[in-house]
Every structure is written in C-alpha cells, then in structure tokens.
C-alpha cells in the first residue's frame, strides 16, 4: 500500500538548483491537493555553497517537518552530510545518489545506519544523454521523484514550463527532456511502496490552497489587519517581511521605510502610530536589543505598535540562519522599569496569519506594543495553507476621544479599564503632550510616588483582561490525562504530532499550546495542570524559557519538567513521543509501588 505521508530530503551544491527542484515539487503537490511543508538550509556562503531542502508531502494535515527521511537524494555526498541534523537517514530511508561519485551501496558514508534501500543513479550521465550537458540534473531529479512518488508529471512540468520558458524555448525543452529521462528511469527502477504517495483529493474548483512561508504570511496579515506603516532594518531571518511590504504596502495607501538602523525603524513606526496609523516593525534578536528603549517609550506613552521578532540562534550574532526559541525572556523583560508587554507566538505558517492579526488587535485595543515571536523555522518554511475565511475575523481600532471627551481632553484619563481614548494630530481639541516621562492624566510631567503608582496601576490594569483570553490557548488530547505537554512556536507542531502518535498508541496525554505567552494566564495553566501527574514544557532554548516564565506565576505540579535544548537542534516527533512513553512508564511504576505488597 502506498503512503499518506512522505519526507524527502535533498542536498547539492549551490549551482545544482536542488532547492528550486524542491519548490517545483512542492508547488505541484500543492496544486494536486496534497498538504506539503518544506524547509531549506544553506551553508554559510552567500553564493555557491551547499544547499538542501526537506519536503514533506501528505494527504492529511501536517504539523511539523517530521523526523528521519523516507527518501534521501544526495547530488553530492559531501554536501549532503553537512546537513546532518536536518537530513537524518534511518533504517527505513531509501537513499539515492549520483553513481558518478564512484561511491557504491556498500560504502555509503553513513556511519551507523543501513538504509532500507540504497540506489546509485547515474544522474549526471542520464542528464547529459538527455540534454547534452549535466546542468539540468535537478529537472532529472524531478522526473525521478514524479515517477517514484506518483506526483503527476503534468503538474510538475507545468511549473517547469512556466519557469524555463521565460529564459528561452531551448532551456525549457532541455528541462523537459531531463525530466522525462528521470521519469522513465523511475518507472524502470521502481522503489518501495513506502515512497509512493496515495493520490490526494484534488481541491474542488473554488477552494484554492495557499502556498507561502511565515514571513510573507505575517506581512500579508499585517496588510489585512490594516497596518499602513512599516519601519525596519534588514536582518536575517526577518528581511522577507520588509521585502514583502516594500512591494505591497503602497498599494493600500501605506508606506514602508528602510530605516538607518533598528532604533530608527521602530521609532518611525512609533511616530506613524502616534499619527493614528497602525504600524509595525520586524527584526531578529540583535535588532530587538536595539529597539528596547523605544519599546519602553511605547509602553509609557501608550502607543499601539506591533513588533515581530523572527527568532534565530543567540546570543549576539549567534546562528543567524537557524531557529531557536531563545528570545522569550527578552520579549517579556528587556525594557527597564516595570513594564507589562503582551507577547504572542504563532505555531505554523497558517497560524501566523491569525496571530499577527490578533497582535494588531491587542495593540490597538490596549494601546501597547505587542511582541510576536516567530522563529526562523516557521518564518522561512513553506507550507500549504487551507483557504482562510477572512470575513469572520474582526479587526479592532483604537479608541478615539468623542466630542465630550475632547471638551477637556485628558490623554491618559484613568478609566476603569485603564484604556484612555487616544487622539491623533489633526483632531481639534485633542492636542496633548506624549512622553516617556511619568505624567499625570493630561500628560504633564509628574514625579510623585503617588502619581507613579497610579499610572503603573493603570498601565498594568488595562492588560489584565488579556489573561482571560482562553481563545489564545488551544488544548488538545485527552482532557483528563495524567500526562501533559506544553509547547509553543515551531515546537508546538512537533508536539501535536507526538501527541497524536501517543494517543494512537493508547497513551493518555494532552497538550496545551499558548499563543499568548505573556502576561502569563495563570488560570489557564492552573486549570490545565489540575490532576496532572507529570508533564513537560517542550521548547527549543537552552534554558527552557517558557517553563521558567510560567513558574514565576504558577505553582506547577512537582513532576512538570522542562524538555529543552539549544536551537539548531529541532525536535522530532519521535523523541517527544519517547519522553511521553517514559513518563507513562514512570507513572505506572509509581502506581505499582503504591500497591500494597502481599507477603
């Protein structure tokens, strides 16, 4: 029987075009109605270094990049091996490589693993025979994959045609010939059923799948949410957000500014928001460091602002192209003084849309900076996304002063909710002094302890409502289970998959996925952990930051521990599953120990 879920990993040198082959495959699969998810990885060189991709294709929903490969394609073994952690070969992997390398199946450079099948294919030679040169190896590989996997040739060729015809008829024909050669080879040398996909359900006429990555999704969400100003500075792995917005935002009457640094980026966004326009910035760790002071100003002057941090490995310059969930502490606590600043995190490309829209809503509703913690994995991986019904999403606009409030306007009116109507320049009667200095209700500087306490109260009070937003949490699995997982961001998908497998194996477990990380919604955790006997916070940071953060506010059951590690070491569903099994066994052991022993 064919499979419903398949992972392919490929690696080659910069010129091999292996990543674009992966993209072509993914696009074709998406058009055929499959769900797909793709991550890419490169060497440190800007150009000409090694590159790889990892594509997962399935007939059902996908939550993560998965574990070991089902099919590995090494255009070049040296390059392939550089991606160890990303391209894991196991005993059930089918391994394919270019026989021109001279490496034979019995001397594979894979220490400690014997793949399920090892097949050297004369990739270069076949390409040369088909096209006269070995340049089009990637088209040949696509032919192989089409033949083996069963992704229809027509779907892939349609994409190739579109790409290559631009560059000339000759190229397109060469590509097609290479593809055909691969396709025929695959037919002649079929692989196991384990790497043949069940056919997908083709989407009906109207229901079009989206295909994009987290960065573009977050930018599109911003436009949808009404963001009309972006100020930022390029930094990996967030630059694509700015790149999208510098293309699109003008069309909606907005503007995007590439500032001289991250400070100016966030400051210009703050300025735009002061003018009454929804505004954002996007960056990564080092840029976040620099934005700290202006974020403090935004909290103090109560200015709505969305700040997207696409986390990469840290500290400092760290690992610019790798994912890590290490910036949570910073998101909550970077600014000096007593500040409460909401922090949200998406768990997938699709989720990024909702979380970004929510971030704008929270920012506008509470007149506060909001930090969204994406990460390199979500931001740069491509996913198929089911159509989003935007008509059902409510957008929030900041509260503005009415006629009566403008009579004797107090910008920082100490209301019951803590939210004060905010006027913007141009409004007669609404002028006020905004500042980072402690102030009274009108905005005039004030430095008494009494006023400071009152204003701190107001600034904290207005955000307490967020702690009741249970809709920003999802609970999955068996509600009464004794074993509980908590996970966020890109790790959450891995846990979802592990949970599904655990349940399939008869284990009683559940999973809490917070999209609101801060303020800590203590009630949600207390309720979730009631009756839990053992648990894990699963996150990709050395310190296990969410676990520590929740401990600040919640008394967790003693056996709730952290399962965490440094970035650039993505979790795999199997290892989370293992930990769930171990917890289940330990609980069982405890039960047995508790049985009275009959003598």
């Amino acid at each position, binding site marked *: 029987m064919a499979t419903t879920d398949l992972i392919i990993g490929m690696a080659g040198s910069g010129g091999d075009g292996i990543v674009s082959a992966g993209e072509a495959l993914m696009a074709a699969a998406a058009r055929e109605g499959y769900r797909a998810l793709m991550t890419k990885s490169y060497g440190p060189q800007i150009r000409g270094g090694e590159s790889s991709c990892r594509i997962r294709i399935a007939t059902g929903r996908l939550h993560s990049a998965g574990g070991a490969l089902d099919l590995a394609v090494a255009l070049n073994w040296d390059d392939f091996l550089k991606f160890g952690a990303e391209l894991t070969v196991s005993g059930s992997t089918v391994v394919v490589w270019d026989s021109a390398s001279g490496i034979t199946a019995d001397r594979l450079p894979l220490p400690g693993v014997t793949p399920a099948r090892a097949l050297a294919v004369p990739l270069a030679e076949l390409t040369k025979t088909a096209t006269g040169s070995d340049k089009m190896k990637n088209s040949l590989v696509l032919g192989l994959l089409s033949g083996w996997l069963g992704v229809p040739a027509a779907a892939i060729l349609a994409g190739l045609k579109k790409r290559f015809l631009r560059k000339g008829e000759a190229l397109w024909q060469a590509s097609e010939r290479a593809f055909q050669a691969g396709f025929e080879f695959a037919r002649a040398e079929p692989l196991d059923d384990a790497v043949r996909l069940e056919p997908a359900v083709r989407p009906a006429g109207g229901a079009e799948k989206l295909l994009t990555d987290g960065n573009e999704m977050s930018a599109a969400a911003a436009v949808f949410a009404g963001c009309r100003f972006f100020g930022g500075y390029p930094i990996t792995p967030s630059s694509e957000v700015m790149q999208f917005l510098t293309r699109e935002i*003008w069309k909606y009457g907005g*503007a995007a500014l590439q500032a001289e640094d991250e400070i100016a980026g966030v400051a210009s966004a703050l*300025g735009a928001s002061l003018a009454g326009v929804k505004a954002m910035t996007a960056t990564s760790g080092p840029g976040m460091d620099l934005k700290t002071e202006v974020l403090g100003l935004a909290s103090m002057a109560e200015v709505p602002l969305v700040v997207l941090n696409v986390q990469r490995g840290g500290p400092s310059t760290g690992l610019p192209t790798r994912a890590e969930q290490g910036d949570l502490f910073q998101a909550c606590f970077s600014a000096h003084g007593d500040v409460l600043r909401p922090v949200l995190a998406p768990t997938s490309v699709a989720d990024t849309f909702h979380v970004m829209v929510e971030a704008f809503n929270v920012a506008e509703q509470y007149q506060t900076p909001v930090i969204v913690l994406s990460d390199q994995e979500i931001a740069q991986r491509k996913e198929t996304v089911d159509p989003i019904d935007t008509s059902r999403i409510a957008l929030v606009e900041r509260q503005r002063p009415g006629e009566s409030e403008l009579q004797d306007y107090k910008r920082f009116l100490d209301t019951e909710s803590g939210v004060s109507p905010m006027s913007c320049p141009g409004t*007669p009667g609404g002028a006020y002094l905004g500042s980072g200095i402690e102030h009274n209700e009108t905005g005039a500087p004030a430095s008494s302890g009494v006023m400071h306490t009152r204003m701190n109260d107001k600034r904290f009070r207005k955000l307490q409502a967020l702690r009741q937003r249970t809709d920003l949490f999802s609970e999955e699995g068996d509600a009464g289970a004794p074993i509980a997982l908590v996970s966020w961001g890109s790790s959450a998908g891995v846990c979802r998959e592990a949970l599904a497998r655990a349940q399939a194996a008869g284990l009683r477990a559940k999973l809490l996925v917070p999209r609101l990380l801060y303020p800590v919604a203590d009630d949600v955790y207390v309720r979730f952990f009631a009756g839990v006997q053992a648990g894990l916070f699963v996150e990709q940071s050395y310190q296990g930051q969410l676990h520590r953060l929740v401990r600040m506010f919640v008394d967790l059951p003693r056996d709730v521990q952290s399962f965490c590690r440094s970035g650039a070491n993505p979790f795999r569903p199997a290892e989370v599953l293992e930990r769930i099994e171990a917890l289940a066994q330990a609980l069982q052991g405890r039960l047995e120990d508790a049985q009275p022993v009959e003598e």
Partner: protein
Amino acid sequence: MAVEQAYAPKDFKSDLKPIWCPGCGDYGVVQAIYRALSAIGRPPHEIAFVSGIGCSSRIPGYTTAYGFNSVHGRALPIAQGLKLANPDLLVLVAGGDGDGFSIGGGHLPHAIRRNLDLTYIVMDNQVYGLTKGQLSPTSVRGRKTATSAYGSLEQPINPLLQVLSYGAGFVAQGTPADMVGLTALIEEAIRYPGFAFVNVQSPCVTYGEEHQQMRAQKAVMKSLASVGHDPADYLKALEWATHYTHDLHTGVFYRNPDPPPTYEQLVRERQAELGRNALPRERILELFVQRTEGGVLADS
C-alpha cells in the same frame, strides 16, 4: 504687517509653565517659534512637534501643538514616521546639541537624504544642560565641564558643515540675541518645502561660558547677508560653514534654489500609481494562491 493673522503667537503657548532656568536662551527660542507659527497661520492642532530629551527638548510641551517629548536622540526618526503617516501635518522637530549631534547624530544624515518636509531646530548651547553641565559634541576643545575637569581633548563637530555635507536643502543659524532674525529664519525654514535645519545659538545661563551668553553674542554676531553671501551657492556655503566655533554668522547658509520633490510627495505618487490595481485588502492572501486549471498553471 497689517494683515490680520488667524492665530496670534499666544495661541501657540500652552499652560505648562517652563521650568527652564531664569534667563535661559530657550525662552527666546520658544517665543520665536510662537511668532513664526503665527505668521505661518496653521492651527495648532495641525502641528506635531517632536523632540528628544534635554532642557531644549521640553519645548513641545510649551506649545499648544501635539507634542511628543520622546527619548534622547530619537526625535527625527519618530518625526519621519509621523510625517509619512500623515503628510498633511506641519511637523516640527527640536532638541539640543547633545540630543541631535551626539546620541541622535546617526539619524541626521538619513533624515536629510530622505528629504521629508520637516523643520529641525537645534538649541546648540555647547553643553549638556539637563544633566547638569557635561561636555557636548559642540563644546570647544579645552572646555572644562563636569566631565572634563582638565579640559576636553577633542575637537568639536561642526553641525553646519555636517548638514551641508548631508545635502540639506535649507541650512541656517540664528540666536535669541536677534529675535527678529531668529523668527524670520524659523518661518522661512518652515516654508521651505523639504528638510530645513536651523542651528540656534541658545545660551545656557547656568552651565555656559561668558562668551556664549546673549550679551557677548550681540557684540560679535554677523549676518551672512551683511557679508554678501548668496545662499544659492553651495560651495561658498561650505566655506562659510567652516567658520563655526570661530565666528557667529547668522542667516541662511544654503537654500536650494531648485528644491527637489519631498519624500512624502514621492511616496504619495507611488501610492497613487500602485494603488490603482490593488486588490481589496481581504484579498491580499490571493498572492499565495497556487491556481490549477486542468493541471496547467495559470499565468496569473
């Protein structure tokens, strides 16, 4: 002038009582701003006034405009975001020599090369007033201050030469020792369609030196007009600007006779041009759609 003005200078004066030291030059600067704004004639609520931190940066609070007394050194980027978000506003920016040329010095070249229609007024008192008398980037070499007990070891910057090298379209210097001149310069700066810079030699009576005070200034100041400088001559402006710290020249060093379009004009053009074929925003996600038409990718 006999023309009746829509707004009198006092209409721009707020209720907040200045806490500057008695005699501080900044009192004169805010007066000149009231008068210039009155001459311009736009209502206070259409004005946004952004500053950083410093004695001088308190100035927006003393006006009836929308005031933003932000953080140290960041007035210019905030003002740029504000202006881009609403180009109809009249946007003023002000601050001190420390705020603008030290901590905020990195923003100046970029604000200028973008050429938004902003008026930037620096109260250059050659010292840090608010923090009680430390060195500033325009303090002269050898100056003794709270952080230079034995005299500073570094050369001051030359703000006039700097902003000229950055390509500012309007560059002027004034002093509250000449209120009429200062008012006129500020008015002219506001009217200039693009980035305009006014350096004001505003004395700090508490931490400044004798020769920086109004009385001394009155004795030595010399207008550029009186020496026959043509503000359209860029190279000559550079040369006159090199006199900074030696001579107190007032007036316009440079006024671009052929002002290029402002950044916000270009932005509006771009918005108009690209906005024509924009989808309604709910359809932004269509950019990500992979269309299938009988298995062949549509070329949309």
